[in-house]
């Protein structure tokens, strides 16, 4: 539902008066570089010849009896914001349509009021009770509702399922919420009605306005929004109450220590209220009303959002040193006009972790948060005979159920990520080497066990893969390794077999 208050500024001004005269030719003016200019016109003034945008001097020349008052655009906007919250009585979401309109989402709510027409009658009565003129319209899309409210008959509703382009083809192109410059251009092109624009065809419009990104400057986007072909998200207005706590005191306070007690109570209550909203205060206002009518204000701003009551109390304690209670303080109020989101945190977690240690899940969480999920892993057996493939790494889970694993003869304690080639001296090419050189050092093989022959996995590897002969060896100084020879001499799958060191035994 779109609601348009054509005379919002005038109505609001009249609401502020004790006894307004509806027949007075009232105009509101704003100061510009070229002198005062009219921003809002009441119907009697309009009848007398005044228009929006006219210089005040020109209007005075036309109608000397104009009643002139300054406009208050900021106040109008604030009023519109409160109005946007108020219209949520007809729908869960409402959005501002500055400067004088509102959009309410009434999808699926109309039956609560007895249908769309009854809803609009109710809304009109409520607006009238507030002294506001309003034009209402309901349509399937926000664009169509806006167009109907501004340019269609009052209180008209477009039923669900009706194509707005077809039903509202006679509305002027201004109903598409376009910029003045674009409207002027369309006017010069002779496109006056929405139906004219829709009849042209998309390619021509897209080509003509291809460099216009803003929806208000691109008639094609507005047409699509009007017809509901592209979504048009509306930014809803949501009430954000300022967290405020207040204490009325039976006996006026005259002493500092009692005031400190009250401030500490208020800080605790405010912290609880902020916590309920998941917020922390950035600015705090403490207001003290005195019995003799004086008001004391103390404000402070914080570097980071906080809701630590003790911290707040301590900060205000410095601020209250110079306050003069006079005959006593009867009301104390603490509010946080500026609050920022502050997630609920368990501040005691760290302390308890210091005391009792963390759980395994918390430990793994911390490790993965810093090092990445792949860095923390747990080895699991996999069904393979190839040593490097016989173990996989998974996310740690000590309760993980293990299946039967392959029982190997003897395996090294550690396995290199890549088996390192070693230079060997051997007596026979298919036998065990006597010496090998690895990482620049020569190892003399003192004892060995093997070979343990591990054939390639033909279902995974190509046919040319060579088998491996593994040896468990110990060199002359006692170091134990796991080495293998890849291939056999004369197996027809490559040249001379190469030797690799793959594992380090304990």
């Amino acid at each position, binding site marked *: 539902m779109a609601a348009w208050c054509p005379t919002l500024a005038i109505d609001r001004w009249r609401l502020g008066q004790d006894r307004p005269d509806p027949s007075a030719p009232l105009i509101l003016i704003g100061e510009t570089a070229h002198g005062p200019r009219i921003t809002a016109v009441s119907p009697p003034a309009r009848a007398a010849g005044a228009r929006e945008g006219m210089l005040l001097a020109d209007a005075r020349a036309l109608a000397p009896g104009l009643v002139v008052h300054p406009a208050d655009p900021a106040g109008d906007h604030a009023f519109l914001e409160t109005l946007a919250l108020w219209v949520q009585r007809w729908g869960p979401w409402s959005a501002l349509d500055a400067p004088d309109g509102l959009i309410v989402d009434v999808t699926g709510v109309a039956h609560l009021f007895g249908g769309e027409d009854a809803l609009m009658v109710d809304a009109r009565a409520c607006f009238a009770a507030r002294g506001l003129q309003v034009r209402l319209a309901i349509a399937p899309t926000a664009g169509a509702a806006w167009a109907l409210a501004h340019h269609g008959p009052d209180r008209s509703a477009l039923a669900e399922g009706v194509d707005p382009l077809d039903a509202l083809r006679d509305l002027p192109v201004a109903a598409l919420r376009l910029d003045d410059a674009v409207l002027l251009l369309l006017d010069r092109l002779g496109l006056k009605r929405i139906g004219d624009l829709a009849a042209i065809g998309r390619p021509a419009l897209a080509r003509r306005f291809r460099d216009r990104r803003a929806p208000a400057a691109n008639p094609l986007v507005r047409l699509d929004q009007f017809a509901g072909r592209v979504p048009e998200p509306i930014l809803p207005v949501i009430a954000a109450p300022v967290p405020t706590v207040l204490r009325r005191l039976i006996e006026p306070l005259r002493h500092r220590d009692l005031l400190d007690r009250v401030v500490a109570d208020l800080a605790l209550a405010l912290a609880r209220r902020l916590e309920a909203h998941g917020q922390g205060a950035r600015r705090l206002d403490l207001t003290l009303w005195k019995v003799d009518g004086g008001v004391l204000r103390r404000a402070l701003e914080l570097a980071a959002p906080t809701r630590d009551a003790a911290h707040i109390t301590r900060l205000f304690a410095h601020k209250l040193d110079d306050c003069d209670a006079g005959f006593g303080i009867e009301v104390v109020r603490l509010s946080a006009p500026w609050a920022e989101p502050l997630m609920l945190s368990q501040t005691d977690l760290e302390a308890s972790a210091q005391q009792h240690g*963390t759980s395994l899940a918390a430990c793994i969480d911390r490790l993965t948060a810093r090092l990445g999920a792949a860095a923390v892993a747990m080895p699991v057996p996999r069904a393979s005979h190839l040593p490097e493939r016989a173990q996989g790494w998974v996310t740690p889970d000590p309760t993980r159920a293990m299946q039967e694993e392959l029982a190997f003869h003897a395996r090294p304690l550690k396995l290199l990520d890549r088996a390192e080639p070693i230079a060997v001296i051997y007596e026979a090419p298919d036998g065990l080497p006597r010496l090998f050189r690895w990482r620049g050092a020569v190892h003399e093989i003192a*004892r060995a066990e093997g070979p343990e022959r591990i054939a390639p996995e033909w279902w995974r590897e190509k046919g040319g893969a060579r088998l491996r002969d593994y040896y468990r060896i110990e060199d002359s100084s006692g170091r134990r390794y796991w080495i293998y020879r890849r291939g056999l001499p004369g197996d027809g799958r490559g040249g001379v077999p190469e030797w690799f060191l793959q594992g380090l035994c304990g």
Partner: protein
Amino acid sequence: MDRFAASVSFLPGTGRGTGKAGGGALPLQNAMRGAIPLHHPARASCRHTELFASADEASGAALALALARDAMDDPADHRPWLWVQDRAAIRLSGRPYRPGLPTGLRHRLIHVAAPRAEDALFALEEGLRCRDLAFVIGEVAGNPAALDFTASRRLSLAAERHGVPLWMVRLSARHDLGSARMRWDVAAAPSPSPRWNRDAPGDPRWRADLFRAHVFQPGQWIVGDDGERHSLAVFATDHGGVVPDAGDRSLAAGSGQA
């Protein structure tokens, strides 16, 4: 490495031994206890141990594992354990290989591959603060700048505070400043011949040199796992309760006796 036969080795030619050769293997704890004043309260407080070993052999990690198993109080302890390696350590000496780990430990391993030594220290400290871990093994290659005395002290304090033992393996590292309560030099020692295949490598043996200790007397032993008692077996080679030289003596041990 999961079948350790009962055995004892001599370190040949190193003078007076206090252990017995032949049949009876002397448990490492007994061998070391000889050097500690019995009334000393802090035998169990050695939660931080450093083992210096070459990166070209797995002796450091193997002895660390054996010591960790030896020091575990409760045989029914089924908590997981943590093995932290930095990238250099992985590149030099490889990753733990599950089929080669001791049977009781292999399904409980949680491995952390830290990209840098700083991250490895972070992971170690987090592991030490976790009450659900049986012990923590760290493996850091070289002498990274991050692993200074302060970092070492942090680890010691965390280990003692939370009672989780830390076995720190230093691969190819200098003996720099550190606050570990026990510091070992580890190298592989020739293994005994197995009974059935005399040419095969036998059960692992390590030449362990305890060169600095808080409450123990420094000493050198040949250490191996004792399959019968499931504990480390040792033959003490020297320093049977005798302090040979003041400069050779652990400062902490001296203050503990005072």
